[in-house]
């Protein structure tokens, strides 16, 4: 069930390097339910936060194979099996002519599928209490915002606050957002 409120701790950094360092320390400190909001992707953040590599490429591979099978199947079925027609003396199974569409279908399935799955995955791959969208933190402008959720097993407000402050974060504060956070 949906949480009726979101609780956690915010603190932000001004450069990606600070954020990276902070992330590594939060990870090493054993926090699990934490996240970073950044205005642009920060290289190395995955490792710093202890995340695994994204599984999107697997989706791409499977969809690519689906695309190939779909296109080849459609073409073969239509041209050879369903209604073979003599087009310019070519054999019904003029397989070299099927290559372009097969390739395009592969790209089509793989690319669009990956994009859609990535967007969905990005929204699904989350901690129990993801960071709320707090515009004034500037997470889409120039701030690298650390969020530690109250659901974290190691959550202990005072300890966490002290820890985050020790990372050099600015604007450290608790957030308690209740109900529909409708913009």
């Amino acid at each position, binding site marked *: 069930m949906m949480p009726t409120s*979101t609780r956690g701790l915010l603190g932000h950094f001004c450069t990606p390097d600070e954020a990276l360092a902070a992330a590594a320390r939060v990870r090493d400190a054993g926090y699990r339910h934490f996240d970073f909001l950044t205005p642009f992707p920060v290289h190395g953040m995955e490792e710093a936060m202890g995340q695994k590599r994204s599984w999107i490429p697997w989706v791409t591979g499977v969809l690519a194979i689906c695309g190939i099978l779909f296109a080849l199947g459609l073409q073969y079925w239509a041209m050879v099996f369903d209604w073979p027609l*003599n*087009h310019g*003396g070519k054999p019904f199974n003029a397989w070299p002519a099927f290559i372009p569409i097969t390739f395009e279908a592969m790209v089509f399935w793989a690319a669009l599928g990956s994009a859609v799955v990535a967007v969905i995955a990005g929204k699904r791959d989350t901690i129990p209490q993801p960071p709320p*969208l707090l515009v004034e933190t500037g997470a889409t402008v120039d701030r690298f915002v650390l969020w530690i959720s109250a659901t974290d097993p190691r959550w202990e407000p005072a300890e966490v606050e002290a820890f985050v402050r020790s990372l050099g974060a600015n604007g450290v504060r608790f957030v308690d957002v209740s109900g*529909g956070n*409708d*913009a």
Partner: protein
Amino acid sequence: MRPTDPHERPEPTALDRREFLRLGGTLAAASALATTGCQPPQEATIPFHDMPESLADGLGRARFYRTVLAGSPVQVTTREGRPILVAPPPDDRSGRGVALRHQAAIMDLYDPDRARHPLAVRRGQGAPVPASWAAIETEAIDRLRRAGSRAVLLTGPLASPGLAAAIAALGERTGLRHVAWSPLAADAAARAWEHAFGEPRPARPRLDRAAVILGLGAEFLDRPEEGFEPEFAARRVPDAEAGMSRFIQLEGRLTLTGASADERLRVRDSELAAVAAGLAHELVVGRGLGPLAGDPEVAAALAPFPLATVAERAGLDAARLGAIADELQAGAGRALVVAGGSASSTAQGPALELAALLLNETLGAFAAGLFESAAAPATGTAGALAALAAELRDGKVEALFIAGANPVYDAPAALDFATALEAVPFVLSLADRLDETSRYADYLAPASHPFECWGDAALPRGLFAVQQPVVQPLHDTRGLLDLLVGWGAALGDPAASAAVAAAAAALATPPEPAAAMPAPSPSPAYHYLRAEWAARLALDPASPAFRTAWEETLREGAWQGPAPAPLPGTFAPGAAALLAGLPPPATGLELQLYPHLALGDGRSANNGWLQEFPDPITRISWGGALSLAPRRFDEMGLANGDLLLVDAGHAQVVAPAYRHAGMHYDQVALPLGLGRTACGVIGNGTGPDAWPLRQLAGDQIVAAGLPVTIRRAGGHEALAFAQGSDVIDRDRRPIVPFTTRSAWESDPRAGTEQQEGGPSAWPAHDYPAERWAMAIDLSRCNGCGKCVLGCQAENNVPVVGRLGIIEGREMSWMRIDRYYDAPRRDGRWGAEVWDGPLAVVEEPQTLFEPMLCQHCANAPCETVCPFIATTHSADGLNQQIYNRCVGTRYCANNCPFKVRRFNFWEYSTARESALFRWLEPRLSRHADLNARAPMQMKNNPEVTVRSRGVMEKCSFCIQRIMAARAAATRAGRSGQRLPDGAVVPACLEACPTGAIVFGDLNDPGSAVARLAAQPRAMRLLAAIGVEPSISYLTKVRNDKA
């Protein structure tokens, strides 16, 4: 709205169940609405009220009638009572041929510009108003009665004995005089025959019996109605049974006939007589050949023409002329000299014809039976017309009836016929439209088309043919014979009265629909003709024997009467004196006026098919041009279409220039039959009107050898060329198989050499049943173009108009490519070859190649069509499905033969919207050309009328293949292969020379399979591996003297 908090997911604005049901209901309603809206529109199916029994086995099928059209027997195909196709009758033995004009007669019949009811023209004072037949006939009969011998009937050439009899009977009753006028009548030959044999009845050369043919300006192939094509073609193949003939042509303009010559010398028209006399001098005087050798009169007449002198004057190589003389001498008894054509309408014409007769006599052509006697053609003379014009002007004629003649348009300008008509108190025009002459008449009594009325014709070999109507008159018109018989009856002629009475009786008897026999016709002409016919057959008109004979004649088309009188006596040596008075040739430039190949004298000028037909030599459609020798053309710095002023002294005409290959340097030529002003919206104003340039010299019309000067008139008029480029270098583009006889004898594959294609990556498809294929023998083909018109009529091919041709939107499925063969250049290649270098086009070797869809086994067009609108059928056809075609034009681009035609416009419907007409004025023109009632009646219901935006092309007449299949199925042979000859495509049907053969390639016994296996057979563009189904058989030029 979506929340901004990603983990907060409140109630989405999805549909609840009630909304879902509501939406579902709406969808269902919408689909129901769409479904009912898309049900087929209610269409009525109207049966007969009472179906005639005669249709019991023929509904939805073609019926064939034999009739005669302008003196040529034809076979007319009708569908549901509408004539849709004219073709040469199979096994015709009349000695006449079918010309393009006959084939296109369908369009004349459905010409929307025909007069649809009688008109009071009132001599052009104000607009014509409708009149009644009764009023016109009453006045006409009254005038006839009163005018007596001061009444004149002016007709065109009369081939109809029935009509002649009716006219004669009227003449007996009232004194009506008859004058026939045919603007293209060639009376030079008749004069020469009269001089030489005492009888103005030229015999008919038998080209199939001659091994050597010398043409002196001969135009036997330019006048297909004269029926020489099959006989000529019979000996044009190298393996002809009787041996291949050799044809040498001397002419000033490259004609269709000259294009088939094995050897061709440029001699201008006015010089031809002298050259012919020179040859005669060489043979008779020089070599003492033939019965006339030693005759002093002949020798004296020929004295001024020693070969060397003649050759020098004509600018010819004397040795070459001598070689021709050698050939003639060697071929004596098998050699034939044919003069005539436009060259005979020079002032030297009679002398030219006589020289030809002299040569034939010398070579023993008459004795060897190379001529057959023929019935005298009925032609009018210019002298008679000139006399009539004088009488008209002098007020000696009180009533003038004009039927089938258009003197205001085509009489020599000197006669000023229009003014002469003003002096006649009563002029009645019996034309089919308000033409140039009718505008000066009091009344226009509209004439029926020959397909709508009864008539007959006498044919050269003694055959008599009946012109039977194949359709009810479309408009309130009458046949000339019907009218004259009616007048005859009114004036008390017994035969006419009997006919009219019989017709009245037939009209009074209600038709019996279920009767086995057709009802008697209510046409007076019908009964008149039957009486005539009974007299000719010496049978009682009421007897069953006559009935049988009559019906057989109708079925077979003609009845063989007594053979024409044998050839007139012997050559009178004194006739040679005609040569002595030979007028000197023109100095400087001379003009030849020649009848337009399709339009003839221009009487069918409102016919879109004929106007659009590209001249086989010039490839110009919609008009004509002044032909200039290439060298003169280049010297003047002209471009095709630059306007020139032709000044013949007595008249001047402005015409666009055309670089005519093979033209004599000192000769220019202009077609006749163009430039009409009152034939209708299709033909009005196309091309220059050249008739005024003809000169009346005594009682002879001079239409060639006219001294003229030309100069630039300023301006340019685009010529509607149906062809892109003229010249091919067969070393580079081996697309026309062509060789000489000597090369062919040493290697029967000679001329078919081409680069072979590589091996195919794929196995070929197999064709389990038939595999349709065609073979075209280029040695037989003379480029006449009748296949083109046959195809156009059969397949509902629209007319695109002059602009359409200029823009390159021609629609004809079949075309005859005409190339000039560039001499081999030993591997050197100049780009200039495409521009027609003088070396090629001054003495061109003409090659004709009928081009149509090749139905390639590996058709490039099929591969590229994404819509599956064109695929290959199991019997080898390249199918084009219009209803599936969306019009990418990719197939046409990828067609190496460029035979696919795209409907850039909607030709078949007249779109009346004002916005549309404002946007595209061209479209009104298309409607004029194709879609004005009753033009749509010409359409063949077996073939889809294509809409805009679809591709079309030759289908090998799939409708005929399917009809043959259905017929076989009905006959209990379903699933069996069709026998050879069961399918006759329209082009083959129209071909007079048998150049086209069609059939099943899988049947080893079929004609096409045998031809395709010949070493002469070549399939084009082997290098790109398209595997056409059409084999072209090498054109072999007979170079063996």
